[in-house]
């Protein structure tokens, strides 16, 4: 069970003077149950790539399959959910509950089961009962995003793709969303996050892909990424690498604050001991 992308090439505005290659011969595969991070700058093709996963875009050449089926087949829509960059624009329900229920209802859930799924998705994202009957348009920007995300989570899909889900979320909501995604992933859902802020997710992702100008320039584990990636390193990794260059004997493959802290403390303590 996997999403397989084989030699995918895609061009926008095909056949016009504006024709622009957006993806060039990209091949990769994402297994069911994986937590995958797709990084790269705006315009690198990451959003274009994931829009192929549920058939919103059709390959110009190459192919994209989901569990063996061509991604634009209708059946695939019940397996892959895509959440766009401005999810608040995907809201339309009269109440928060109605909005979140729309997805699962379309996939055939009814009655108690539907209620249960909507409740558990909202609860997972820390959204309390008091907002269920409120219009989603009355909520703050951060809450609107969480409600839109709840709609995708409640649909119980095999693969969920989130395009820049953290932009515009504060630290607290980011934590809530991250732990919700980890929870879903632990239940077997593949989570695919598109983000240019890679440092947030390196500690949780199984695998990382990096796109640059429509080309796949890296694919591997987070540890391999911080060792070999050509660009987009987290600031902490840059700091550790520069410390090494200055003869400060720390590991260079570190990407979160806690590891950096223990690594630097270790070296400082050794220095102290030597001095004594």
């Amino acid at each position: 069970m996997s999403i397989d992308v084989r030699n995918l090439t895609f061009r926008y505005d095909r056949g016009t003077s504006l024709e622009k290659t957006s993806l060039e011969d990209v091949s990769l595969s994402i297994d069911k149950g994986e937590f995958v991070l797709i990084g790269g700058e705006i315009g690198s093709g990451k959003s274009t790539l994931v829009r192929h996963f549920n058939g919103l875009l059709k390959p110009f050449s190459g192919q994209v399959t989901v569990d063996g089926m061509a991604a634009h087949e209708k059946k695939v829509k019940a397996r892959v959910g895509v959440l766009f960059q401005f999810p608040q624009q995907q809201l339309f329900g009269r109440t928060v509950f109605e909005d979140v229920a729309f997805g699962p209802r379309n996939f055939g859930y009814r009655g108690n089961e539907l209620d249960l799924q909507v409740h558990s998705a909202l609860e997972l994202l820390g959204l309390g009962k008091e907002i269920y009957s409120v219009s989603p348009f009355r909520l703050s920007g951060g809450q609107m995003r969480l409600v839109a995300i709840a709609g995708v989570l409640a649909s119980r899909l095999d693969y969920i793709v989130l395009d820049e889900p953290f932009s515009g979320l504060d630290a607290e909501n980011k934590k809530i969303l991250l732990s919700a995604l980890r929870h879903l992933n632990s239940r077997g859902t593949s989570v695919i996050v598109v983000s240019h802020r890679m440092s947030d997710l390196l500690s949780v992702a199984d695998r990382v892909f990096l796109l640059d100008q429509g080309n796949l320039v890296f694919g591997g584990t987070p540890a391999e990424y911080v060792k070999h990636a050509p660009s987009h390193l987290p600031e902490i990794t840059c700091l550790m690498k520069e410390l090494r260059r200055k003869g400060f004997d720390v590991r260079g493959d570190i990407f979160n604050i806690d590891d950096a802290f223990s690594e630097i403390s270790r070296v400082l303590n050794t220095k102290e001991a030597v001095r004594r």
Partner: protein
Amino acid sequence: MTLMIEISNLLHSYPDGTPALNSVNLHIGRGEFVVIAGRNGSGKSSLVRHINALLLPSGGCVSVNGLCTSQKKHHPDIRRTVGMVFQNPDSQFVGMTAEEDVAFGPENLGLPPSEIRELVEMSLETLGISELRSHSPRSLSGGQKQKVAIAGVLAMEPECIIFDEVTSMLDPFSRKEVLDTVKRIHAKGTTVIYVTHRLEEAMNADRLVIMDSGRVVADASPRDVFLHHDLEKYGIELPPVVALSLMLSKAGFPDIGLALTKDELLEALCP
């Protein structure tokens, strides 16, 4: 420094009575660079929308150059003095080309065509987007769009510009470019009010104001705010380097002290 914006005991309630802002006091001088940060829903956007009279006080007073926003006759002057750039540039475009879009503001001010042309040139140049003038704003990248939006506000030569989370949809490269532009605009004498929840962007500010639950909970230089306030309590994430330097100095390495940037921390560790 001349006082420019004076906010006293500002109250603001949503139509259903829930308070959005609760006795906020804030004074901003001409030429200052003030960053306002806080978690989602802390009231930072509501607060700045009072400064150019997009929202009006339920209580208290907001005045700009001595003109009170609660008097409707002052609104044209206030809005001419204070320009605003929003998070999502797509919702602000009116022109068919970037140039037309930038000209829209000065045209509305009723300026003569030669002056409009000059202002548009100057703004496009300051933003470094002169070569994009004949592009449709919709065909541009996120960072370029945001620059067109900023140029449009700049062309009206406001004394003060409010940037409301203008970088939150941008990648690191475009974010840095936009932030550098903001610094350039400030260096030319414009008062800058910059709303963000990314404190990395606050390092160059004169003042960092933290909002929580509709109140101002900290107002000092960025360095003093990091040293004397527990920002996690307010749902704000410290920049990684700042957090790391504070962890180290609290854990028995006091010499390291607070580092605002990677270079400061490098310097402290390898003098």
